[in-house]
């Protein structure tokens, strides 16, 4: 008798033809040129990035494009210790939710360039871009974000300030009608 069979590999793969849609296409064209571009909500003035073409609060179309810097604040993060099948990343590594400066929506990206233990909520970070020859229509053009060395930001204060600015935007718009 030969060996027993106890386990089988049964991977499941779905092959999509992914259509980015109009707004993400504009965003990805910007990425190809090394630019981060958000879109402003016509209701709240909040800047949405990556843009989906509509304001998530009002559903209104977002047509105003806003050029954004490649600096950001760490809102929250996790240290990944387990290898992810198909991922080229060697654990442990840090995955963080960042909010780009002048924007109002978090992004999930890698933070590196420092010890994992040194990543903190409120840390200031900046994009490390891959070599321009590698740029494609992709978020992967940014290899990771690294600390800028600036003092940390109080994220509650940041949130309060951005929400206050949104309220002012709404009031100003109501006043101008």
């Amino acid at each position, binding site marked *: 008798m*030969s*060996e*027993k*069979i*106890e*386990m*089988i*590999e*049964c*991977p*499941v*793969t*779905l*092959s*999509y*033809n*992914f*259509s*980015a*849609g*109009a707004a*993400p*296409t504009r965003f*990805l*064209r910007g990425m190809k040129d090394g630019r981060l571009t958000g879109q402003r909500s016509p209701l709240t003035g909040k800047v949405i990035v990556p843009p989906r073409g509509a304001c998530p609060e009002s559903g209104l179309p977002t047509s105003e494009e806003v050029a954004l810097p490649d600096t950001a604040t760490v809102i929250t993060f996790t240290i990944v210790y387990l290898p992810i*099948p*198909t991922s080229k990343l060697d654990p442990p590594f840090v995955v963080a939710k960042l909010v780009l400066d002048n924007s109002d929506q978090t992004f999930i990206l890698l933070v590196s360039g420092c010890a994992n233990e040194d990543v903190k909520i409120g840390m200031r970070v900046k994009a490390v871009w891959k070599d321009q020859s590698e740029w*494609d*229509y*992709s*978020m*992967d053009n940014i290899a990771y974000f690294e600390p800028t060395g600036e003092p940390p930001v109080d994220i509650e204060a940041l949130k309060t300030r951005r929400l206050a600015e949104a309220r002012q935007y709404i009031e100003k718009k109501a006043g101008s009608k």
Partner: protein
Amino acid sequence: MTQAGSAPAPDTVLRAGFDVGFTYTRMVGPVIGEFLAGLRDGQIKGIKGSQGRVICPPTEYDPQTAEECTEFVNLPETGTVETFNWVQQPRAKHLLQKPFAWALIRIDGADTSLLHMVDAGNEAKMKRGMKVKVRWAAERRGFITDIACFEPA
């Protein structure tokens, strides 16, 4: 995220291939494990149900009485097509890259049926009740594809 190819026209929406995959490894348990080991060794195995019925592919419990099944029986490489569905245009992931049938095949000596492919060449050759026999894969490793397909007997 996505990888686009050559520069598309400025007004077109970007598109790209995008694969979502899950790398499952599955425990097969003692009964399916024995069935798969049988396939690797070139032997189709069924299991006796509590009322003497032979179940193939084997199950751990009798589907009617829920009693545990333990007695394996060796079955021949031949069977009968109970029902089938003809695939005129195989998709990329189908193992047969030519027209074929998905069929429920009752292995001779079994009382239940097994889902597999029949390579009959064309649809006109497929009939309910037709006799088929196993075409073994060139290399067997303990997997359902150790049976490459069935073919008319």
